[in-house]
C-alpha cells in the first residue's frame, strides 16, 4: 500500500518530465537546424505558416495577445476576487457563506467552452451596443470571460490565506479599539499578503493557459493590439486552431510545439514564483 502511494506521487513527476521532454523533442529540430530563428520567433509579429511565397513564423503578435488579454482580465478579476475573499472570510455570516462558497464552486465547474459560447453570443452583443466597437469578439470580450473564469480560483486561495491568519491577530487589533475595516486593511491584508499574491499569480497562470474560451471570444486575428477593442489571437488558441492541419514533422508543426514550449516556460515561471512566495511565507 505504501509503495502504491509512493508510486502515485512519483508518477506526477514522471508525467511532467515526459510531457516536457516530448514537447521539446518535437520543437527542437526546427531551432537546431536554423530553419526558424528563435530571435525572429520572439520578436516579429508576422505569422504566415502556410505562405506560398515567404513562410514566416513570428509569434510576437500572439505573445502580445496572450499577455494583453490576461493582463486586462487580471485588472478586473483581482479586485473582484480579493474583495469576494475578504467578504467571505471576514464579513459574511455563516449561512450565506456556505451558499456563496457552493455557488463559487459551481462557477469554477463551468466548462471553458460554455464560457466561450457565452462570450460569443451574449457578451459580444453587449460590447458592440455599449462601446460601439465594430466587432464584439475582441480583447475586452476575451478578458471578461477569462476574468469570470479565474475569479473562483483567486477567491478560494485568497480565502484560505485569510483564514490562515490566526484569530489572535484579529482579537488583539479589536482589543486595541480598531474598527473592522481597520483590522482588515492594517492587520489582515499585510499578514496574508504572500498567500494573496500566490492567489493572484495562479489566476494569471490560469489566464495564460486557457484555450477554448479565448479561441472563441478574442476574434482570432493576428495583429499587435492597439486598443482593448481590437481582435487578438493568443498563443494557446493558435495551437488549438492550427495543429490539426500542420503535417506532422513539418516546420509549421514544430513551430507550434515551440509555441507550446514557450507557454510551458511562461506558466512554469508563474507557478514557481507563486510557489516560492508561499515557501517564503512558511519560513517566516
Amino acid at each position: 500500500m505504501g509503495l502504491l502511494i509512493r508510486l502515485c506521487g512519483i508518477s506526477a513527476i514522471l508525467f511532467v518530465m515526459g510531457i516536457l521532454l516530448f514537447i521539446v523533442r518535437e520543437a527542437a529540430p526546427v531551432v537546431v537546424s536554423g530553419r526558424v530563428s528563435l530571435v525572429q520567433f520572439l520578436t516579429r509579429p508576422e505569422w504566415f505558416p502556410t505562405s506560398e511565397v515567404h513562410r514566416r513564423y513570428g509569434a510576437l503578435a500572439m505573445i502580445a495577445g496572450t499577455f494583453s488579454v490576461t493582463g486586462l482580465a487580471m485588472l478586473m478579476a483581482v479586485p473582484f476576487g480579493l474583495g469576494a475573499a475578504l467578504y467571505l472570510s471576514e464579513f459574511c455570516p455563516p449561512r450565506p457563506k456556505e451558499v456563496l462558497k457552493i455557488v463559487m464552486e459551481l462557477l469554477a465547474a463551468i466548462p471553458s467552452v460554455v464560457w466561450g459560447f457565452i462570450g460569443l453570443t451574449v457578451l459580444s452583443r453587449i460590447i458592440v451596443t455599449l462601446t460601439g466597437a465594430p466587432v464584439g469578439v475582441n480583447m475586452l470580450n476575451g478578458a471578461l470571460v477569462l476574468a469570470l473564469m479565474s475569479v473562483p480560483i483567486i477567491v478560494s486561495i485568497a480565502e484560505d490565506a485569510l483564514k490562515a491568519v490566526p484569530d489572535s491577530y484579529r482579537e488583539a487589533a479589536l482589543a486595541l479599539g480598531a474598527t473592522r475595516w481597520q483590522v482588515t486593511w492594517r492587520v489582515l491584508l499585510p499578514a496574508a499578503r504572500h498567500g494573496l499574491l500566490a492567489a493572484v499569480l495562479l489566476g494569471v497562470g490560469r489566464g495564460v493557459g486557457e484555450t477554448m474560451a479565448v479561441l472563441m471570444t478574442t476574434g482570432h486575428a493576428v495583429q499587435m493590439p492597439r486598443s482593448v477593442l481590437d481582435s487578438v489571437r493568443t498563443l494557446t488558441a493558435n495551437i488549438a486552431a492550427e495543429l490539426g492541419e500542420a503535417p506532422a514533422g513539418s516546420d509549421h508543426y514544430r513551430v507550434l510545439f515551440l509555441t507550446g514550449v514557450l507557454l510551458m516556460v511562461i506558466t512554469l515561471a508563474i507557478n514557481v514564483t507563486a510557489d516560492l512566495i508561499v515557501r517564503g511565507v512558511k519560513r517566516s
Partner: protein
Amino acid sequence: MRIPGTRTVIEPSFWRSALAAGMAAMICAGCGGQSAPEGGTTLQIKGSDTMVNVAQAWAEAYHQVRPGVRVEVSGGGSGVGIAALLRGTVDIAASSRDLKPEEAEQARRYTGREVRSFVVGHDALAVYVHASNPLEEIAFEQLADMFAEGGRIERWSQLGVTIPGGGDKIIRVSRQSSSGTYEFFREHVLGRRDFRLGSRDMNGSKEVVELVAATPAAIGYSGMGYHEPGRVKMLRVSPGAGRPAVAPTMETAMSGEYPIARSLLLLTLGEPEGEIRAFLDWVRSPTGQTIVRECGYVPLTPDERAALTAGR
C-alpha cells in the same frame, strides 16, 4: 505563519496550466478514428467546412436508402480532412480545393497508394458584405488590395462607400489557414500573395457569414450555400478592372462565367470499393445531386454526368 491548504491547491493548478498547452493540441490533433457500431458499416467523412452541410444532408438521406450504413461527418477544413485521410483515420476526405502535389507525394510515400478524387458538385465562392452596405460589385484588384499583404485599401471611403451603420474601417473576415476556402481565395484572388495580418480568422464557413451579418463594416468570403438573404449581401465580382462583374448564381457558376467558382471534391485513398464506392456513386446520382442543389451549391453539369456514366 502557515497557510494550510495553499500548497495542496498549487499542485493541481500547476498541472492544469502545464498540461493545458500540450493537451489542447493533442486533443485537436487526434480527432477522428473509426467507431464500430453493432451490425453495420460506418463511413467517416472529414474535411471541408464548406461541404459540412451538404455532407450531412447526404448522410441523413443515405441512411434512408441504406439503413445498414451510417455516414459520420465532421469538419475542420480541407487540409485537416486530407491529413486525416492520409493518416487512415477517415474513409473519405471532403475538400473544396485540389489535392496539393506534396499531399499526393505524402500519400505515395507513407501509404503506397494514390489519392483518388471525385468531383461531386461546384460552388461559387461568394464575397459577402452586410445587408446595409451600399456596395454592389467589386473587382479582384480591390479585393487583393483589401486582403493581401501590402494592400492599400483599409477604409470604405477609399472605395467611395459610406457605411450606414457607421464605421469606416474595413473589418476583414477571413478563414483559418487549414481551410480550403482560404487557400482557394489566396490562389485565385490574391495571386498567391499572403493575407494581410489583422483579419478575423473564423473556423467555419457559417461563422464568416454570421460575423459579417452582425458587423456593418465587414467584408468576408464564404461558400454561396451559406447566403442569408436580408442579413448579408453577395457582391457581384469582376475578375479585373473594366471586365463585367458577375453575380454568383447556379447558372454563372456552372457556365464558368463567375470568376471564383470551384469544384467540391470527395477524396479516397486508393480506388474506392464496397460501401465507399456505393456511397460515392449515390452522391453523384440524380438523388445525391438534388441534395447538392437544395443545399445551395451547384450540381454536376449534364456533360460531367454524361462522362460519368460513359466512364463506367
